[in-house]
């Protein structure tokens, strides 16, 4: 099963491309202090809004900071937000989905109505409203994105649990006296991990997109901490003079999100070729 997965995964061009992009991003953000040509926060008022050149490959911003360096440091921020936010979503989504799917009846009814209610809110509205009350900070952003992104995972996990809970191996576990919690987490959940893994990978992409939009609006990662979204804010403020401030950070977001989406779809195809 495992070797089958890797065989299919490595032959899948989409998956490998996505995987390479994701690994590269990790490497870049871990080695940021070595690979970035300048200090991302070094202000140089003699070099304000300089066009891209050999000295500054992606130009400089309104404070003379090197855009390439800020994008490199921004990679780490994006990944952190993406992973922590998705972690929150997974935690809530898996537990609620497992409970709803395993117990059914009123537990299911209550949880799924809650999902329906949360889906009524435009996610962006809910995030903004909470941020308005809690003050923007990187931690609040991660929590709020996580708290508004678990509904899809709940539905997936629930569906898996419903189809798995009457299987023979579950009956067998029950027959030898395993408790509900043990059955849920040790027996059923591992079998439902495939779709969770795919949803999580795609979820990281979504969280990175949301974070960049929030930072762009000035309610996400706060300057001077570099984030792709807040470099784009500078791009908007200087839209008629500095195109490079708008172009490059957006490309970084696009490539990252594309990478995670490719990886997610690739994992899905490799786990179960029938799902294609």
């Amino acid at each position, binding site marked *: 099963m495992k070797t089958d997965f890797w065989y299919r995964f490595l032959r899948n061009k989409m998956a490998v491309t996505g995987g390479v992009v994701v690994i590269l991003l990790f490497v870049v953000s871990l080695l940021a202090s070595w690979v970035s040509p300048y200090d991302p926060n070094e202000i140089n008022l003699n070099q304000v809004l300089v066009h891209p050149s050999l000295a500054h490959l992606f130009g400089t911003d309104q404070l003379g900071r090197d855009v390439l360096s800020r994008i490199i440091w921004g990679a780490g921020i994006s990944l952190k937000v993406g992973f922590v936010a998705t972690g929150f979503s997974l935690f809530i989504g898996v537990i609620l989905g497992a409970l709803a799917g395993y117990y059914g009846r009123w537990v299911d009814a209550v949880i799924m109505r809650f999902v329906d*209610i949360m*889906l009524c*809110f*435009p996610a962006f509205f809910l995030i903004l409203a909470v941020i308005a009350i809690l*003050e923007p900070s990187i931690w609040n952003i991660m929590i709020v994105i996580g708290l508004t992104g678990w509904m899809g995972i709940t539905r997936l996990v629930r569906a898996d649990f419903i189809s798995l809970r009457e299987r023979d191996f579950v009956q067998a576990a029950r027959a030898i006296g395993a408790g509900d919690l043990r059955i849920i987490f040790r027996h059923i959940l591992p079998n439902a991990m495939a779709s969770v893994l795919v949803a999580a990978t795609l979820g990281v992409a979504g969280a990175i997109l949301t974070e960049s939009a929030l930072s*762009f609006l000035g309610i996400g990662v706060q300057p001077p901490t570099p984030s792709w979204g807040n470099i784009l804010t500078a791009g908007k403020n200087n*839209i008629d003079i500095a195109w490079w401030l*708008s172009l490059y*950070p957006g490309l970084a977001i696009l490539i990252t999100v594309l990478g995670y989406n490719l990886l997610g779809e690739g994992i899905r195809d490799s786990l179960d070729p029938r799902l294609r």
Partner: protein
Amino acid sequence: MLRYVLKRLLLMVPLLVGITIVCFIVIHLAPGSPTDLQTDLNPRVSAEAKARLQSMYDLDKPIYKQYLLWVGRLATLDLGQSFSTDHRPVIDKIAERIPITIIINVLSMILIILIAIPIGVISAVRQNSLFDKVTAVIVFIGFAVPTFWLALLLMILFGVDLGWLPISGIRSLNYEYLPPLAAFVDLLKHLILPVLLSAFGGLAGLSRYMRSNMLEVIRQDYITTARAKGLSERVVIYKHALRNALLPVITILGLSIPGLIGGSVIFETIFAIPGMGQLFYMSVMSRDYPVVMGILFIGAVLTLIGNLVADISYAVADPRIRVS
């Protein structure tokens, strides 16, 4: 049919109650009570605002009473008064800004339908053709493009470099002196980019959905029957298959409403369009809680209504739904 509509309306009640509870929780998310916000954590909330919050949410009463009083006022559409210097009722502020937001969203939804459905149908009918493969790549990239970034790029291209389109507001400064036709064209020019971009987000999803839907329908027995009857391929595809493949699209469009409404915050802020999204953004920035909570609630209710309309239209279009 009437029974179905009544049933759907009844199902809305618990959702509506849930929406009010979530809104209520958000108000009380603030550490301590909402009025503690005025401490050093958030100097922007003045002592006066604190007093008004106190009376508005009856914070001196037990929590269940606070909720009931608040819902009672919601039921009469009393969303309180804005904290901004104009002190106007929140409902008035929202009401005057909703039309432009709805117009933009409806226009972009029409655009989504007009573009995504043909793309989906053609790529399904010509599965694995060049067209299918190219659109598949474009759709995949479309999922990953941050639309606000695309907005910036298009503003640079059409607004700054080419100078073809205005990049801010919904009318030019000389709008009032323009003859009616020119004024209309002026409005259209201002709306092109926002509508296009707001549609962009939904295009990828719907065209992909339409494609898989159409592929599934084409494999059905009744399509084989239609072919066996000797109908031309065109009639089979565009009459028998398309009609059935279109049905679930109604639901998908209903589901895309929250995304569109949520996206209006970004587009209206970027393009300085005086709609509900921009009001929401400004209220978040100035901590105008009554307006923030009002729009959060209205946004959820609009979604609920959109889904109801979608479900009812589906039932009108597909008798099988009504019976089951």
